[in-house]
């Protein structure tokens, strides 16, 4: 028993790195060897003369709990639905970066939240199982009911919430409820998070899954499997970006600035595609892996500013719940 305790303690001793500790809050997936975290850590430590420590968990709830007493110097991995509450907390400082050259399909001029990657919501299908996918959202909702899709719950998942906004943008306030009524019989189930839904799709349980336009890149790049595609809809797709910000109360503002600078550097941006399976926010297409640059892209990008999205969130959730309640 005592040996077991010792082993446990020994295993918690952090790895030694030179310089002061620089703490970045990040989501759980981020810091694993299959996420972008380790590469970012190595890359930044090579130039910062510091020890970058990722503290993982639910980033925004955690920092809101901690308030000004937080130990975080910066955060990475906030989602777009969180920016309003994050901004209102007053806990974040301007990033002071030149964001005129971002490679995103919209104009980003947020002085506080710095996007480091983006993608668009899309339904993914497997061509060997679904030969004739819908080409528009209207085609999807009119498709026969034996076309089964899996989506995520908007109350527990970022992509699930994005689907509410996406459909609202496509069908407008008048037609949205009716569109959900038509989509409902095709929804096999609604999962808590993205991974359960995606797992059901790869198992062959569902014909399509709510995911991202960049999802097929993983199958091509890592599995050499070119049968998975995003169904591109002519009405457009909803944009999701992940964001970073520096914390106002950080006692190492220079390092935090350096980190913001590093996020837009070619070194950081170059690793995003294959480490995060999404588009980097500032990297010309010719620097992307060929298969990545060749992924089909929607002609129209849909997106709601944070205050509009926040104002719509509760009514859209109520509408969604009502459609499913009967």
């Amino acid at each position, binding site marked *: 028993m005592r040996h077991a305790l010792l082993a446990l303690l020994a295993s918690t001793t952090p790895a030694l790195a030179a310089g002061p500790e620089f703490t970045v809050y990040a989501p*759980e997936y981020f*810091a694993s060897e299959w*996420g972008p975290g380790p590469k970012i850590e190595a890359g930044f430590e090579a130039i910062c003369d510091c020890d970058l420590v990722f*503290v*993982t968990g639910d980033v925004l709830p*955690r920092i809101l709990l901690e308030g000004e007493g937080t130990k975080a110097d910066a955060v990475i991995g906030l989602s777009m639905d969180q920016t309003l509450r994050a901004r209102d907390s007053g806990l974040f400082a301007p990033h002071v970066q030149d964001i005129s050259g971002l490679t995103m399909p919209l104009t980003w001029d947020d002085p506080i939240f710095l996007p480091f990657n983006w993608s668009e919501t899309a339904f993914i299908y497997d061509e060997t199982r679904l030969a004739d996918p819908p080409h528009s959202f209207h085609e999807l909702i009119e498709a026969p009911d034996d076309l089964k899709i899996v989506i995520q719950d908007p*109350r527990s998942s970022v992509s699930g919430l994005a689907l509410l906004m996406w459909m609202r943008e496509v069908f407008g306030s008048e037609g949205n409820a009716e569109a959900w009524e038509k989509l409902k019989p095709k929804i096999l*189930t609604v999962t808590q998070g993205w991974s359960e839904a995606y*797992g059901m799709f790869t198992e062959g349980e569902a014909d399509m899954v709510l995911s991202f336009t960049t999802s097929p890149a993983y199958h091509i790049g890592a599995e050499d499997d070119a049968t998975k595609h995003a169904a591109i809809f002519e009405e457009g797709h909803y944009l999701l970006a992940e964001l970073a910000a520096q914390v106002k109360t950080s006692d190492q503002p220079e390092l935090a600035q350096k980190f913001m600078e590093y996020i837009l550097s070619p070194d950081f941006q170059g690793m995003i595609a294959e480490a995060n399976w999404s588009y980097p926010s500032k990297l010309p297409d010719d620097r992307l892996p060929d298969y990545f640059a060749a992924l089909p892209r929607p002609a129209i990008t849909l997106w709601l500013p944070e205050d509009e999205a926040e104002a719509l969130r509760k009514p859209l959730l109520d509408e969604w719940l009502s459609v499913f309640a009967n």
Partner: protein
Amino acid sequence: MAQRLRQLSPSPGGLAAGLLVLLILGTLAAVATHAGGLSALGPWDWRAVWFTLWQAALSATVSAVLAVPVARALARRRFGGRALLITLLGAPFILPVIVAVMGLVSVFGRNGLVNDLLGAFGLAPLSIYGWQGVILAHVFFNLPLSVRMILHGWQAIPTERFRLAASLGFGPGDIARHLERPMLREVLPGAWLAVFLVCLTSFAVALALGGGPGATTVELAIYQAFRFDFDMGKAATLALVQVGLCVAALALASRVSRPAGFGAGLDRDTPLPAPAGWRRGADAGAILLAAGFLLVPMLAVILQGAPGLAGLPGAVWAAAGRSVVMALISAMAALALALALAQVIAGGRAWAELAGMLPLVASPLVLGTGLYLLLRPLVSPTALALPVTVAINAVMALPFALRILIPAARSLQADYGRLADSLGLRGLARLRLLTLPRLARPLGFAGGLSAALAMGDLGVITLFADSRNPTLPLKLYQLMNSYRMGDAAACAVLLMAISFALFWLFDRGGRIHAAL
């Protein structure tokens, strides 16, 4: 007089119960205080409460009703591989939720085995998605627990009573009336309660198979309040509702439960009377059906993941080693707590039983947030990640360990308590000579269950995660979130194998010790 004096002085069990109440309600209070009070619930929240309640009641009832014939068949029949089968049948309970859902989908899903078979006979397909899927999954998870708890009840009837019954010429119907039904009256309410409480806080299962937001449980509403609304007051209110449901269910179960009062036996290992005729076929059917229902989905998971085992990266194996150490510590802590509590409860203090059941309905999210708020001024949460995970897993496993130990501890108290008291047997000597040997079997089972549960639990990763020292469930979660479903399936098999090995070792240890 001496008896009463001893009850007034603080015992380890009383202390443990007090600490538990403090932990569960204290963290809840910390969250509510942080939020500046409790907030009101909306209509959708009340819908979630209602769904939670009825699905838990139905799941628990179905599990209990199905478990009785299976437990009786296992109790009175002897066949080759019986011991192994009993252990294997316990396995679904210790599967990580997401793994079990995948297994169920591959058997009962649209392209699953069952629908392929139905299709071959030209029958209409079954759908697992909807409330029926939620119940199916909950029964899959909890039937093993019910079977084992009821089986222990059967084994606890002294064989002398069956011999007496035989000499009086009792048929199966008379045995049922005079021996089996009184035993079930004592054991079933506890078994029902345990499953009901497990299903009360279930959330990923309900969502994945529920087919839509109609299948929303209270725990999902708590997650939503925490993650999207940042309404800690609402999270605390919902957590309080769960605690209230727990107290109500416990009160109900304790009113229904009646001690069977069989008295002590001589522990002779004579098999129970095994009636011939159609009952023999019915018993075989019950065992085969249960084995098929519980083992085929697990087999599906194994077949899917096993080929990828060798290719798992080293970090996964390192995480596995770390998780085993943590699971062992958790299990030991859970056993020590459960043993102390069970003795206090057997001594007649009902509030301690309530305290012991509370962790089942404590929302992990609220518990974690409360602990975070309380501990953060003192120590860095990252440094505490592993100890907190170990402690929370021990506390979360405690109710199960307790449910298994309470009936045994009660009979021990009733049958041997006065004798031991009159001999002045107490303290460590009583523990060594009486308590541990008499309770070895349930202790082994409880320890195995605790270790396996701790092995498969993510802990409260939203606030206490140490990404430099990941556990195996965390690795599984990270793999799934990086598209690596194949590696995740292999990781799930590894997790399942280790959980099962831990469970088997403890359970086996308990049974060998009991045989001495």
